[in-house]
């Protein structure tokens, strides 16, 4: 064939559409860009878009269809952990290739999957270290707040162990969870207030899932919990999520990512412009206010890394591409040159801490000097000692 | 006139069939939690001081009434006197606030559920015909038929030939043989009345409660119905509520007049009709 098919497996309907649609867009944009530059090994890329509709068994079905029926060379997709868990066996069975662009809880390594989002040590831990520093406000007490599912639970488990190692007593950690789609944060915020008012400097670490963030932040603003008193650092709130929030009362609350739209460097300027143009051209709703965010960048990076690996391997054969991917580097919009780790299929990524601005963007207040290597098997979870690569 | 005798014969045959214990183990069903019907004092229904009120309104007010085994009793009384409510109490649909209700000597109706009461032998025809609209007339009768009505049996139940014949008989009797397969919901009002009477016949209850059975029937049919009921009396006990005096007369039994929830007068029709209070509140001038 004179084209190479690639699959895009992101929910365009259902609860996850809110986040995943933008990833589909960025993937299409990247593919167009690659095609405009002559494609991969002289062949054009042909995107195959399907909608797994936020339904996990459907993810597996669609993954199988992409790999087995459409014979795509690689799939870019998934957001939630459970969707990834659902498709993992399919990629393993059919020896396909998946690029997963979202920060996640780790505790996994699959030969057929490349993780371009952050592992906990590339996001959560630096963020907490920052909060504990003088600069971050020397927090002594922590509220670990999340939606009740695996990513928050795991992250908080890791953080608890981490905090303990830093000498934070159990009494100074409050852990609380809300159901999916929870929209009433009155009690929780009252509890946080109470916990925070007991004397020690308190910070909130939020792993609240997308949909609940708007009510959470609205309540936060109206209940008068200011960032200067009790800062909230979030791991799943980025530019896209903040589009639904009036951020004026939230200035100063934080997020930790490997990329922010406000990062200033030529790659990012170009990336943002490309995406805005693409959005306008393709009639994306509200095209003039589209934003870029971390998983979008990760998608972009993932596709390029795959392209480079295919060109290096001179083949789209899964095993060859996997072999070629290790050690690939790419100058990412984050301004850093990212490297695909040879052994663990994760990227070395820089970490940024950003504070929310009144316009819904983030001011980077802290960043790592170098990209950090991922630790998918967190050393803070017992039993992981010695686990490294595949 | 030959037809009348034919009907009579059929009704009588029917009444006899009712005595036959042809279903397996009525006693063994365990359905009748409170024991067997005991008619040793020849009283089948015994109501004593029954009071029912709805939001302060006394629909039944210390009502006492007994019906003998085999008796055909007519109940008349002004609209709203509490006749239907009384039947609700007897069949367990409404629980009385006070008072006793016994079926025979031993069965305390106020403590039994509707299916238990039905099983013990009380059948009822409602004032507004209530039948199974989506079932055919035939199926309506089949469901009503006296049988073991527990799930386990019903799952594997099928019709015996004689049961089938009996249904056919009743269908003919209620003049719905041509409508056997029609959905009951599509029947006319009068036909529904008949169907409900048919269901009651199939049920072979010991006590039949009939709430305005001839409403919406022609005079001719009213007569036939009266004959049918008369022929059922003796073997069965009947309590008939009607406003049609001609019908009540044709039935010929003892008449009880209810008014404002209690008994106003009792006696044969002529006496009652002569009672000035009855004329005042009920019959009119």
């Amino acid at each position, binding site marked *: 064939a004179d084209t190479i098919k690639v699959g895009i497996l992101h929910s365009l*309907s*259902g*609860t996850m*559409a*809110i986040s995943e*649609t*933008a990833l589909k867009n960025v993937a299409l944009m990247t593919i167009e860009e690659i095609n405009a530059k002559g494609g991969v090994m002289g062949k054009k890329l042909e995107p195959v878009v399907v909608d797994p509709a936020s339904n996990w068994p459907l993810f597996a079905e669609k993954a199988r269809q992409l790999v087995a029926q459409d014979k795509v060379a690689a799939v870019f997709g998934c957001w939630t952990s459970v969707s990834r868990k659902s498709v993992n066996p399919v990629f393993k069975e059919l020896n396909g290739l998946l690029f997963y662009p979202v920060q996640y809880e780790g505790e996994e390594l699959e030969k057929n999957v490349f993780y371009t989002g952050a592992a906990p040590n590339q996001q959560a831990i630096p963020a907490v270290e920052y909060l504990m520093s*003088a*600069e*971050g*406000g020397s927090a002594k007490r922590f509220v670990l707040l999340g939606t*009740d599912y695996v990513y928050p639970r795991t992250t908080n488990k890791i953080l608890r162990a981490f905090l303990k190692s830093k000498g934070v007593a159990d009494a100074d950690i409050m852990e*609380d*969870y*809300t*159901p999916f789609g*929870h*929209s*009433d944060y*009155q*009690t*929780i915020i*009252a*509890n946080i*207030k*109470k916990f925070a*008012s*007991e*004397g020690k400097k308190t910070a909130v670490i939020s792993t609240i899932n997308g*949909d609940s963030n*708007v*009510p959470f932040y*609205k*309540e936060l*603003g*109206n*209940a*008068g919990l200011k*960032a*200067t*008193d009790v*800062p909230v650092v979030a791991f799943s709130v980025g530019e*896209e*999520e903040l*589009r*639904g*929030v*009036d951020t004026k*009362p939230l200035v*100063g609350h*934080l997020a930790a990512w490997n990329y922010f739209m406000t990062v200033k460097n030529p790659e990012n300027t170009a990336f943002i412009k490309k995406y805005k143009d693409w959005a306008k051209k393709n009639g994306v*709703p*509200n095209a003039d206010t589209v934003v870029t965010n971390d998983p979008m960048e990760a998608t972009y990076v993932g596709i390029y890394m795959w392209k480079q690996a295919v060109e290096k391997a001179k083949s789209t054969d899964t095993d060859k591409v996997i072999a070629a991917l290790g050690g690939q580097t790419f100058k990412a919009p984050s301004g850093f040159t990212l490297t695909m780790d040879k052994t663990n299929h994760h990227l070395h990524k820089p970490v940024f801490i950003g*504070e929310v601005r009144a316009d*819904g963007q983030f*001011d980077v*207040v*802290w960043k790592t000097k170098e990209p950090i290597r991922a630790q998918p098997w967190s050393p803070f979870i017992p039993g992981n000692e010695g686990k490294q690569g595949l | 006139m030959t037809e009348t005798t034919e009907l009579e014969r059929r009704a009588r045959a029917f009444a006899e069939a009712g005595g036959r214990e042809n279903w397996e183990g009525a006693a063994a069903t365990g359905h009748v939690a409170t024991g067997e019907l005991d008619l040793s004092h020849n009283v089948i229904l015994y109501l004593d001081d029954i009071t029912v009120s*709805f939001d302060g309104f006394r629909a039944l007010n210390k009502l006492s009434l007994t019906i003998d085994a085999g008796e055909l009793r007519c109940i008349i009384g002004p609209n709203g006197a509490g006749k239907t409510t009384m039947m*609700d109490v007897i069949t367990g649909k409404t629980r009385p606030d006070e008072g006793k209700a016994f079926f025979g000597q031993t069965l305390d109706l106020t403590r039994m559920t509707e299916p238990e009461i039905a099983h013990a032998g009380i059948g009822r025809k409602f004032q507004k015909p209530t039948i199974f609209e989506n079932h055919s007339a035939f199926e309506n009768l089949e469901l009503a038929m006296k049988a073991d009505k527990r799930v386990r049996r019903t799952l594997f139940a099928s019709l015996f030939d004689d049961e089938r014949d009996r249904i056919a008989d009743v269908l003919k009797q209620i003049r719905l043989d041509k409508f056997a397969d029609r959905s009951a919901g599509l029947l006319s009002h009068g036909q529904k009345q008949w169907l409900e009477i048919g269901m009651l016949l199939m049920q072979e209850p010991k006590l039949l409660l009939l709430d305005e059975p001839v409403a919406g029937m022609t005079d001719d049919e009213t007569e036939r119905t009266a004959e049918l009921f008369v022929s059922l009396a003796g073997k069965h006990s009947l309590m008939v509520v009607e406003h049609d005096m001609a019908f009540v007369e044709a039935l010929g039994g003892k008449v009880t007049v209810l008014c404002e929830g209690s008994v106003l007068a009792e006696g044969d029709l002529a006496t009652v009709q002569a009672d000035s209070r009855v004329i005042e509140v009920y019959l009119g001038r």
Partner: protein
Amino acid sequence: MEPAMNRLLLRLALLFASLACLALPARAALDPALVAGFAGDFNSRVAAIEALGVEGSAEARALLDAVEAGNLGVAADKVVVIDGDAVKDAASGEALQIPADEVETITVNNRIRRALATAHAALALSAESAADRLAAANTLTENTSESLLPLFERTLAGEKDEAVRGVLSRAVARVNLGSADAAKRLKAAEALGESSDPAVKNMLAALLEKRGEGKDASWAEPDAEVRAAAEASIKAIDRRIATAQAVGTVFSGLSLGSILLLAALGLAITYGVMGIINMAHGELLMVGAYATFLVQGLFRSYLPAYLDWYVVAAIPVAFFAAALVGVAMERLVLRHLYGRPLESLLATWGLSLVLIQAARVVFGPQNLELANPGWMSGGMELAAGVVLPYNRIVIIGFAVFVLVLIWLMMQKTRLGMFVRAVTQNRPMAGCVGVPTARVDTLAFAIGSGVAGLGGLALSQIANVGPAMGQGYIVDAFMVVVLGGVGQLAGAVWAALGLGIVAKFLEGWAGAVIAKILVLVFIIVFIQKRPQGIFALKGRFADS
């Protein structure tokens, strides 16, 4: 007399200074030592900011503003201020020959912002309005330190306002609690009984700690009298906290209840009264919310001065937008389904899919931003940090308003009677002369419009996005059914009951378990009341 005089003089001086600032490019120099801290590490920067606040001169103010604007930086070991393209020495204000982009500006993060707030508060202690002073005093109390003591005492000497005095003297007491003078400590411990701050309670509790055992036992606070005072004060604080929190919980229950009610009221009409199993009800909420969003957009572009009132203007818009969608739904689809309630489930499920996707295609899949207007932002602070947010208070009021409206409509108008009659016996309603088709459309429009109002209210609390309705549909049905289908009063009790039960359970068992328990509660409750709270009694009920 004297303090007033002081303030007057101070203000005059300030005025003069700022005039001077405007008039003269050169200004009075600050002590370079004050500024030097900015060149140091993070902590010294924070200290520098606080020092500037205490200093309080116009130059200091200007410098603080520069920090806040991100214009203060360090270049060539000098602390400098960027002023347009020019770079000036921070202390002296001399222009320097350093290009602006070589200055490494000080990042303004939370810590800096907090220091700035303290500094500003210190400055504001001499503000004219008592409210400003009170706010400043409150801010300072939260971050007291020994260094602020002189400032407090200075201000207390001249302060007249009782509230401000109270706050400040408690702030002083907090500092004095650590004093070496037992008398001071005693006074402080007594004074703090007026507080309702858990932090104060912890400070007092620390005094009561016992170290060691038996004979060697020693108290953190050696003076028994002080301890007794502390104990009494703790009790007083506890009482205040407990009441405030109980009020807070009841309030959040009411608030949750009112939101459930608003989400369910429209359904109480379309389903409860008309009998249409409206699975697209959530999407009608969404339509109302999106309409609100559009109104906000219009105000932003055309009436920015009145932006704060967009929510009020959105009330009719949200109502009619949703009503219009409702009419379309009724005319095109539901009209053909009366008397087939189960089919309405299927059709409205389809409609819901279509509406969600339409919103996604037109507005995009993300959430939309709806800001609380100024008068709905923030909250009323009860004691002990319990805040009743204004948006929630407004929504409770709004729920009552909508409820009264519907109640009047259903019970007091002929339309209401017609609607009830049509649903009870459609053919017969026609046979007494009710134009059934029109009544249906109207009733459905009203129900949908009310759902739109619900959407408007939700937009002030929660997500506005294509799938927002899905989050409420289950709750809405539960409210309507728990109350008893067709019983508006039932829906009200159900919503409030669920809200308050949920909030009390949540305080006790956490949000997840609370939600599960609430559902179990519904299941058990229905066992007791198989027809909902306001069961229809009567002989027709079971037929």
